[in-house]
C-alpha cells in the first residue's frame, strides 16, 4: 500500500479503537432477541400477510444493525453511506417493480 492508503487504514484502525466493546455485545443481544421474536411468531400461526410484514420489518432492522455497527458503515463518511445504500436499494426497488406485479397477475389471472 502507498503512504496514503496506509494513513487511511491507520485512521480507520484508530476509529475502531474508540468504540466500546460492550456496544457489540448489545447489538449481538438485540439480533438474537429479534431472531427469538421471529421464531415465536412462527409458532403463533399468524395470517401469512401479517407475518410476512412483521418478519420483513424485523429483517430490515437486523440488516441495518449489522451494516451499521458490525460492518462499521455508521462511522464511514456520509458520501460512502449514501452511495452504497442508495445504489443497492434502487436496484432492489427496480426488481420489485418488475417482478411482483407479474407474479400477482399469474396468481389471479393464470398463465396466458
Amino acid at each position, binding site marked *: *500500500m*502507498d*503512504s*496514503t*492508503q496506509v*494513513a*487511511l*487504514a491507520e*485512521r*480507520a*484502525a*484508530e*476509529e*475502531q*479503537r474508540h*468504540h466500546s*466493546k460492550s456496544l*457489540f*455485545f448489545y447489538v*449481538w443481544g438485540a*439480533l*438474537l432477541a429479534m*431472531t427469538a421474536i*421471529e*421464531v415465536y*411468531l*412462527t*409458532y403463533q400461526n399468524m395470517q*401469512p400477510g401479517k*407475518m*410476512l410484514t412483521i*418478519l*420483513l420489518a*424485523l*429483517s430490515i432492522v*437486523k*440488516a441495518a444493525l*449489522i*451494516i451499521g455497527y*458490525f*460492518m462499521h458503515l455508521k*462511522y*464511514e*463518511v*456520509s*458520501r*460512502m453511506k449514501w*452511495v*452504497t445504500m442508495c*445504489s*443497492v436499494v434502487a*436496484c*432492489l426497488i427496480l*426488481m420489485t417493480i418488475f*417482478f*411482483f406485479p407479474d*407474479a*400477482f397477475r*399469474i*396468481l389471479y389471472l393464470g398463465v396466458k
Partner: protein
Amino acid sequence: MADSALHDIPSVYEPSLFGTYSKKIGMWLFLLSDSLTFGALLYAYSYGRISTAGWPTPFHSESIVNATIMTAFLLTSSLTMVLAVRASVERNAKAQTLWLLATMACGIGFIVLHGREWSNLIEKGLSLPMFPAVPGAVADPEFVNVSKTVPQFAATFFGLTGMHMLHVTLGVIYLGVVALRRKFIPILLALWLAAWLLIPSTSPFHYGSYVLLIAAIVISIILWLKPKVYDSSDVEVAGLYWHFVDLVWMFIFPLVYLMSAKIL
C-alpha cells in the same frame, strides 16, 4: 469520521473520495454486486411462491429449531469477527488469531448443521434431478409429492441456500488464510481428503468437497505470488465479507424457513 478531516492526509494522489482505503472500497463494491445476486435469488423464490398455488410448507418444528441454531451460530460468528477486528487494531496478534478461529468454528458449525438438514431433506425425497439417488432411503410421500407437483420449490430452495452455503464455505477459507496464512493450506487439503473419503458418493456434498481442493490450489498460487503478513486492514476487509454472509441469512431464514413452516 468527519468529512472535513479527509483532506489532511499527505498524499501523492488525490484524496480518497470515500474517505477510506482502496481495499475496503473494493470489498464494498463486491458486496453490493453480490447483494444483487442474492436479491435476484430471493426474488426468484418469492416470485415462485406468489405465483404458485399450493406452495409447499415442508419445514416442521425440527427444521425450524435447526435453522434457529444455525442463525445463532452466524450471529455469534459476527460478534467474534468484530472482536477479531478489534484485536487486530490493538495489534494483539494472538487474540486476533483466536477470535478468527472462533469465527471459523461458528461458520463450520453452520455448514455442518445446514449439510445435515439438506441430507435429511434429500433422503426424504425433496431433491433435484442432478442429485444422485440415495439407495435404501425411505421417501416421505409429502416430500416426493412436492418434488413432482411444485419442482420450482426444490430448485429455488437448493439454489438459494446452496449459494449461501458456498459463500459461508468460502468465508471460512478466507478467514483461515488471514488467520493462519500458509499453514492453512495443508489443513484445507486434509479437510478435502476427509470430506472426499468420509462423505458417501450418493451425497451432493461428496462432489461439493471439490470446492476445498480448488480453494487450496488458488490459495497456494496467491500466497506463492504474494506472500504477506495480513494487517488490521486485511482483517477488517475479511470481516466485511463475513458480516455480509450473516446479513444475507437474516433474509433467507425468515423468508424461506419461517414463512414455509408447518408447525404441528
